[in-house]
C-alpha cells in the first residue's frame, strides 16, 4: 500500500489542455472520490495515475517512487474501467483471476480470494459465462471483481456503479466501503454522482474543467463550499443562488431583511450605501416553515413567498417558490399545509447560508 502524490500535473491532448496544474495528495489507505461534471477530466486523471496516459508536465508519486516513466504493468494498480474492458474470450472466472495468475499467486490464495469476491458481488451463477452473455450490470460487477480480487497497492475506480439499478448500487456502495475498511487499500474513485461522492469518500475532490475546485470531507464540502460551482454541484436538489444585496449586518433579499448573527463577511470592504450586490446561496433543505420554527433559534424570515408548485416526495415536499422575481426550490417536511398558489413565510438560519462574489463566484470571506 502506498499514498499517491500528484505535483503540478498538466495534461494536454494535442493542443487542448485537459488538466491544469493539478496538485493532489492522497494518503496511504485513504479513499478519495473525484467528482465533477462529464468531461471535466476525472477519467483522464485516473488514467494518468494508472500510467495509461503520459503526463504532459508534472510528477506522479506512488509511495515515494516517481511514476512518470514507470510502465502501467509495473505500477501494481488495479483499475475498474468505465467501459468494463472485460476479456471477451475468457469467462467470468478467468477474467477475475487473470491478474492474480499473472502475478503467480499460489492456487489456494487465488481460490480463496476469488470465492470471496464472487460472493460479495453475487456472481456465483455466472462464473462459466463469457462477458457477451451477461447484462450490463453483471459485466460491471465482473469488472469490479477483477480489480478487487487483486492485491494491489492502489485501487482506481472509474464510475464502477453507473450501470447498476438503484438497489444494487446502494448495496455495492456499502460493499465497497466494507472492502475498503478491511483491506485499507488506497483508493481513488471517480463518479459524477454526488450522492456516491458524499457517501463513499473520506475525502471528496471536486473537479471542473480540469481544475480542482475544492477538496475536503463530504461535510466540509457540503456545508462550506468555496464557490458557486461547488455549492450547486454538491447536494440535491442543488443550492438556490439568489441575487441579493449585502449591507452591514444583514442581507436584503427582495425587500426582506435577513439579519446575520455572526457578522458580515467581507467586512473589511467598503460597503456602498445601496448595498453590495452578492449571490446568496441557500440549500433547499435549510428552509423551515415559519409555523413550525422553534422559538429559541435566531432565524431570518423571508416573507410572502408564493408557492408555484408542490411535489410531495413522501416525508418531504419539494416546493417551487417565488420571491419577488426570483425562483427557488424549498424542501419542507410533511407538516406544511400550504397549497399551490398560497403564500408562505420561510425561516432560514443565516449561519447555514453562503454569500458569493457576484463576479468570481468565490465565497465571501
Amino acid at each position, binding site marked *: 500500500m502506498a499514498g499517491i502524490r500528484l505535483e503540478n500535473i498538466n495534461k494536454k491532448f494535442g493542443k487542448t489542455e485537459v488538466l491544469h496544474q493539478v496538485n493532489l495528495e492522497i494518503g496511504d489507505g485513504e479513499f478519495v472520490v473525484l467528482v465533477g461534471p462529464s468531461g471535466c477530466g476525472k477519467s483522464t486523471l485516473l488514467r494518468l495515475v494508472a500510467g495509461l496516459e503520459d503526463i504532459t508536465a508534472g510528477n506522479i508519486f506512488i509511495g515515494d517512487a516517481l511514476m512518470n516513466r514507470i510502465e*502501467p*504493468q509495473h505500477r501494481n494498480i488495479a483499475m475498474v474501467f468505465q467501459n*468494463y474492458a*472485460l476479456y471477451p474470450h475468457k469467462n467470468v472466472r478467468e477474467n477475475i483471476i487473470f491478474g492474480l495468475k499473472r502475478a503467480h499467486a499460489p492456487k489456494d490464495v487465488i481460490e480463496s480470494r476469488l470465492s470471496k469476491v464472487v460472493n460479495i458481488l453475487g456472481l456465483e451463477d455466472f462464473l462459466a459465462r463469457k462477458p457477451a452473455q451477461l447484462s450490463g450490470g453483471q459485466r460491471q460487477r465482473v469488472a469490479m471483481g477483477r480489480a478487487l480480487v487483486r492485491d494491489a497497492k492502489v485501487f482506481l475506480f472509474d464510475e464502477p456503479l453507473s450501470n447498476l439499478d438503484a438497489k444494487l448500487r446502494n448495496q455495492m456502495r456499502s460493499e465497497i466501503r466494507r472492502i475498503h475498511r478491511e483491506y485499507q487499500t488506497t483508493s481513488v474513485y471517480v463518479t459524477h454522482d454526488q450522492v456516491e461522492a458524499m457517501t463513499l469518500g473520506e475525502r471528496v475532490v471536486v473537479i471542473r474543467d480540469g481544475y480542482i475546485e475544492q477538496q475536503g470531507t463530504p461535510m466540509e464540502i457540503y456545508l462550506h463550499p468555496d464557490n458557486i460551482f461547488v455549492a450547486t454541484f454538491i447536494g440535491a436538489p442543488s443550492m438556490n443562488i439568489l441575487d441579493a444585496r449585502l449591507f452591514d449586518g444583514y442581507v436584503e433579499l427582495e425587500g426582506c431583511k435577513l439579519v446575520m448573527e455572526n457578522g458580515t463577511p467581507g467586512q473589511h470592504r467598503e460597503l456602498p450605501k445601496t448595498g453590495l450586490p452578492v449571490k446568496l446561496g441557500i440549500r433547499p433543505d435549510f428552509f423551515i416553515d415559519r409555523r413550525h420554527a422553534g422559538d429559541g433559534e435566531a432565524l431570518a424570515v423571508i416573507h410572502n413567498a408564493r408557492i408555484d408548485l408542490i411535489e410531495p416526495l413522501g416525508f418531504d415536499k419539494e416546493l417551487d417558490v417565488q420571491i419577488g422575481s426570483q425562483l427557488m426550490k424549498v424542501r419542507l417536511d410533511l407538516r406544511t399545509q400550504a397549497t399551490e398558489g398560497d403564500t408562505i413565510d420561510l425561516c432560514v438560519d443565516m449561519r447555514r447560508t453562503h454569500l458569493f462574489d457576484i463576479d468570481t463566484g468565490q465565497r465571501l470571506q
Partner: protein
Amino acid sequence: MLGKRTWVENGLLAAAIFVVVAFCLFPFVQILSTSLKHQFDWGNPSLIPVKLNWNAYGELLGIRSAEQVDVPDSVKRLLENPSISESQRRKILDRYQTTSDVFPFLRYFLNTFMLSASAAAVSLCLSVFGAYALSRLRFTGQTVIQRSILFVYMVGGVLLMVPLYQMSVKIGLAKSVGGSLVSLLLIYIIQTLPVSLYMLGNYFRTIPYALEEAAAMDGCSRVEAVFVIIIPLSVPMLMTVFVYCFIIAWNEFLFASVFLKQFHQWHTLPLALQTLFMSKNAIWDRIMAASMLTMIPVVVCFLFAMRNLTGGLAEGGVKE
C-alpha cells in the same frame, strides 16, 4: 420490401443464381468429368463418363504403376527410317517408354505444401506484429510505410521477376536448390505481406484498445498483451490470412517457373502441371486428374476459412 417477393420473382431469382453458379462451376465439372473418362470417351460431350476410370488418379497417387504410352504412328514410321542409328532409335523409344517421370504427384505435392505452408506461416507471424504496429502504435514515418506497403502490392508480379531473379543470381542464391527455394519463399512472403497486413490491421482496429489497457493493469507488457488478448481474439482472422497466403503460394507459377527451372525434383504443382501438359505424357485424363488433385487443397482451405469467418469473438468486452 423484405419478404414481399412473389413466387415468380423468387423463381426468377433462383434461376438467375443457378445460371451464374453453373457458369462458374462448369470448368470444374468438366475437369472432374474428363479426369474420370476413358480414352474412348474423351470426345463425348456428355459430362457423365460412360465408364468410370480411376486409373489416372491411381497412377498419380502411386497406387498403380503408370500405363505406357503407345508410341504414336508418326514416330514408328520415323523409327523405321534406316538412316537412324540403333542408339538414336533407342533414345527416341526410351523417351516414350520410360514412365519414371510421368508425374510424381506426391513429391510435387510435398514440395508445394512445404513451400506454401512455410511462406504462409512466416507471412502470418510477420504480419501479426506488423499489423499490430501499424494499427496501434504511433511512430514517425508511419504513413509513408503504410502507403509503401500497399504500393508494393500494386506493383508486384511480372515487373519484378527479372530484377528479382538477377538479384538472387548476383548474391549467389539462385545457384543452389536451397538458395532458390529461399528466394522463392522470400518472394511469396513479400507478395502476401501487404494484404495480410491490411486484413489483420483492419481487424486489430476492431479490438478495443481498452482490453490491452486492462491487460496492462493486470500486469501484462505490450507484447504479452498481444499474445494473451490480441491473438486469441483474432484466431478466425489469423486463419483466414494463413489460408490466403497459403493459396497464393500454392497457385503461384511465374516465379516458381523461373527460380526452379533447373531443379526438376523441386518443382511445385503448377510447374509440374505445366510440364505435364507439354510432355508426351499429356493424356487428358491424367492432366485433368492432376489438376483436380492440385485444386483440392485449395478448396479444402477455402471451406475451412469460410467456417472461421464468423466474427463476433471480441464482442461483449466493452460498453459501446
